[in-house]
């Protein structure tokens, strides 16, 4: 059975290793798609609709085509077809400079026949609302699930809570916007630098779109500036860049603007759920009845969890999508989970208060997950749970502090589909090649750690090549927190196979059986006779003009599904301004074997920061009158900055020696923990995210009244 070995035997695995690309990133040497500039390259721009719902009556591109410096203008929508949201693509240009491309866009005349639009869930569901897609009343068929007997459950309940929880649409805010640089050669071969989470998926999509053999499309993603689930396919902007390049015969760069990024590059759907729940007098969650909906814009996919994490024997849930004239949702870091977790953890605290029970104790009773049970103890100690207000809002002074808790659960067990090769050259150099991509999570360094550990070398001795489809070593997209558990086992077994081959070559030299050989730090030796030791270079020198190159297999024993997490937040609420200041967040995250403890902590930090943005800052505002997004920028759409980010204590809760992905789960518990901390501070509950100063002041005023 394959194994990562004991922690005590690991020299690198599980330690804090600086990421290999760190220096290149901070010095600007790292090349993102945005940084790619090919000789003779043209600049692409897309004209987008400012109207939320319309029929296209005509597109006149003649003035744009006549502008000096413009090399191509193409329509992206046909006459008589519908525009369904602001930002939808109308036409595109390629020009010698970005400024000329911008000017050309302004010269395209579009004749739109406006149609009635709906951009909020309430307007979309209102009687007489225009139906904007193939759902009656703009509502998809509800998904209904029932377990146990809901009536019997409520009959047994000693306390009940009825509440409505809401989370708004949140956009991904990838720091590197979506985009590509496309270059054709001889109309037969297409190279694309793509800001993507899936090099091979994008390659296949381009191949299908342009009717090319897949092996005549090369996709390169050396570095990538954030995707969070929104960068799987090429997007229309990718196909457009390639089409403009095909027409002009020149490379074309087409990156989305920040405004477009907000409008069309995906978002986390909203959630509104009305829930009634009951608990028994001894603290058992006994009944849960929830009806909810969300909007993913014109798309389906507005799902969310509930009931979540905690066991409830009797439940009924009904969920549906609401169509609005807004850009479609895309998967966003733990799709559906942060929304559901916020509602569930708020509900748990409300029930606990009605029972007169400590909310942590209430969770212990109802959470069947043993890992999280241990995390509750650890996290409570770290945050100082005993310091929370026994009576919510009972603190004195203008600024009141509170402490709250939230929970989450994820899979992250990886899957098959990665091919990799580890090569040992005669000069002692080592290469590890696979078609995965480093989307900022540090998998490049993870690969180096695994190979270096296997060979007794340093991570800087390993040349890792990822983010390129050309070597023909496929790997899946980086989504579902699946990258490391999918890639690491293959790299491990490939390195082990290469090491075995090397041992077979040098065993006669050392006059020792292969099974007796081990790697030391830069050496290979016979375990039964340490005088039989040679350096790594002496060993690889025996290869002469040959190299050893081995592939690996995805050994299921090297990874495990399931990542439990819990977080504790301490906040300070200014009762005069309504401002919520985060004091500290403790994140206890189950992750199995953390191959690189440093980047695992970074993952947790990043998840927490995204979660606190959802809790306190982020909201897409749509104008019902114009149908437009009012804050499609980074001044009015707030994301966390240094002033909003508190002390974060990331605790890598590695309970076993199998790899589990943690890209997504750390963002799940944060909003619930913060919302509960705010309640503990001020004694009024805010059931709608983000928890902004106006909501806090309104809630305090309502309480006072």
């Amino acid at each position: 059975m394959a194994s990562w070995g004991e922690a005590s035997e690991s020299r690198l695995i599980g330690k804090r290793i600086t990421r290999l690309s760190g220096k290149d990133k901070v010095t600007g040497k790292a090349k993102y798609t945005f940084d790619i500039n090919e000789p003779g390259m043209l600049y692409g721009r897309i004209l987008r609709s400012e109207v939320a719902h319309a029929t296209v009556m005509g597109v006149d591109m003649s003035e744009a085509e006549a502008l000096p410096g413009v090399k191509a203008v193409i329509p992206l929508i046909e006459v008589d077809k519908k525009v369904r949201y602001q930002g939808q693509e109308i036409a595109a240009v390629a020009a010698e400079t970005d400024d000329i491309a911008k000017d050309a866009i302004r010269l395209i005349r579009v004749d739109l026949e406006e149609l009635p639009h709906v951009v909020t869930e309430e307007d979309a569901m209102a009687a007489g609302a225009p139906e904007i897609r193939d759902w009656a009343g703009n509502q998809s068929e509800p998904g209904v699930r029932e377990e146990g007997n809901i009536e019997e459950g409520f009959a047994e309940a000693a306390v009940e809570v009825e509440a409505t929880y809401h989370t708004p649409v949140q956009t991904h805010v990838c720091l590197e916007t979506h985009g590509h640089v496309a270059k054709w050669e001889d109309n037969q071969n297409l190279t694309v630098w793509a800001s993507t989470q899936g090099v091979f998926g994008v390659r296949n999509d381009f191949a299908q779109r342009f009717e090319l053999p897949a092996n005549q499309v090369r996709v390169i993603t050396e570095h990538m500036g954030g995707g969070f689930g929104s960068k799987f396919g090429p997007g229309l902007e990718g196909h457009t860049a390639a089409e403009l390049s095909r027409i002009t015969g020149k490379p074309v760069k087409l990156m989305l603007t920040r405004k477009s990024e907000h409008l069309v590059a995906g978002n986390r759907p909203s959630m509104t759920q009305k829930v009634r729940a009951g608990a028994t007098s001894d603290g058992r969650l006994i009944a849960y009845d929830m009806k909810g909906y969300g909007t993913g814009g014109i798309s389906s996919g507005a799902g969310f969890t509930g009931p979540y994490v905690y066991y409830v024997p009797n439940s009924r849930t009904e969920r549906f999508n609401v169509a609005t004239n807004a850009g479609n949702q895309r998967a966003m870091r733990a799709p559906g989970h942060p929304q559901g977790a916020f509602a569930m953890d708020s509900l748990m605290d409300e029930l606990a208060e009605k029972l007169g029970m400590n909310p942590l104790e209430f969770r212990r009773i109802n959470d069947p997950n043993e890992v999280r049970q241990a995390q509750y103890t650890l996290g409570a100690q770290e945050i100082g749970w005993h310091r929370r207000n026994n009576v919510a809002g009972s603190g004195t002074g203008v600024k009141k502090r509170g402490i709250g808790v939230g929970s989450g659960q994820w899979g992250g067990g990886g899957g098959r589909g990665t091919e990799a090769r580890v090569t040992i050259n005669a000069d002692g150099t080592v290469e590890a090649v696979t078609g995965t991509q480093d989307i900022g999570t540090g998998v490049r360094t993870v690969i180096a750690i695994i190979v270096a550990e296997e060979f007794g070398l340093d991570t800087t001795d390993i040349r890792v090549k990822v983010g390129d489809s050309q070597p023909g070593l496929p790997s899946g997209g980086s989504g579902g927190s699946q990258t490391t558990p999918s890639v690491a086992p293959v790299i491990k077994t490939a390195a082990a196979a290469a090491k075995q081959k090397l041992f077979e070559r040098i065993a006669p030299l050392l006059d020792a059986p292969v099974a007796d050989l081990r790697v030391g730090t830069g050496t290979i030796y016979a375990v039964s006779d340490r005088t039989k030791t040679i350096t790594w270079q002496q060993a690889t020198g025996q290869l002469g003009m040959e190299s050893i190159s081995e592939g690996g297999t995805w050994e299921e024993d090297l990874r495990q599904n399931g990542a439990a997490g819990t977080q504790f937040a301490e906040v300070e609420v200014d009762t005069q301004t309504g401002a919520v200041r985060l004091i500290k967040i403790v994140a206890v995250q189950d992750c199995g074997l953390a191959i690189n403890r440093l980047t695992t902590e970074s993952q947790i930090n990043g998840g927490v920061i995204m979660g606190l943005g959802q809790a306190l800052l982020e909201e897409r505002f749509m104008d019902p009158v114009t149908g437009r997004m009012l804050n499609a920028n980074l001044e009015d759409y707030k994301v966390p900055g240094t002033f909003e980010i508190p002390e974060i204590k990331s605790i890598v809760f590695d309970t076993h020696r199998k790899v589990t992905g943690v890209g997504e789960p750390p963002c799940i518990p944060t909003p619930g923990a913060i919302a509960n901390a705010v309640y503990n501070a001020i004694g009024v509950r805010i059931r709608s995210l983000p928890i902004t100063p106006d909501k806090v002041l309104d809630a305090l005023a309502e309480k006072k009244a």
Partner: protein
Amino acid sequence: MLQGKALPIFNRPICQYLRTKAIYIPGGNLQNLVENNPGSHYWCNCTMQVVGPDDQFVSPDACTQSRPCFNPVGGKPVV
């Protein structure tokens, strides 16, 4: 996308242009291509929109052989 995965049991023709996130990631639930999953976002690789070339919405239920743009995985059967 589908490389390296065990082939799903497609018990009916699936349009090769239909897309959802699950087909891009290791261990993704390919059943999402066969049955509508209300929690999934679907798009068309021809249009890169939530509608196909015929301007009708795409999904496993909606992308059927009755649509002129339908092109099954593996190509159209030889008559």
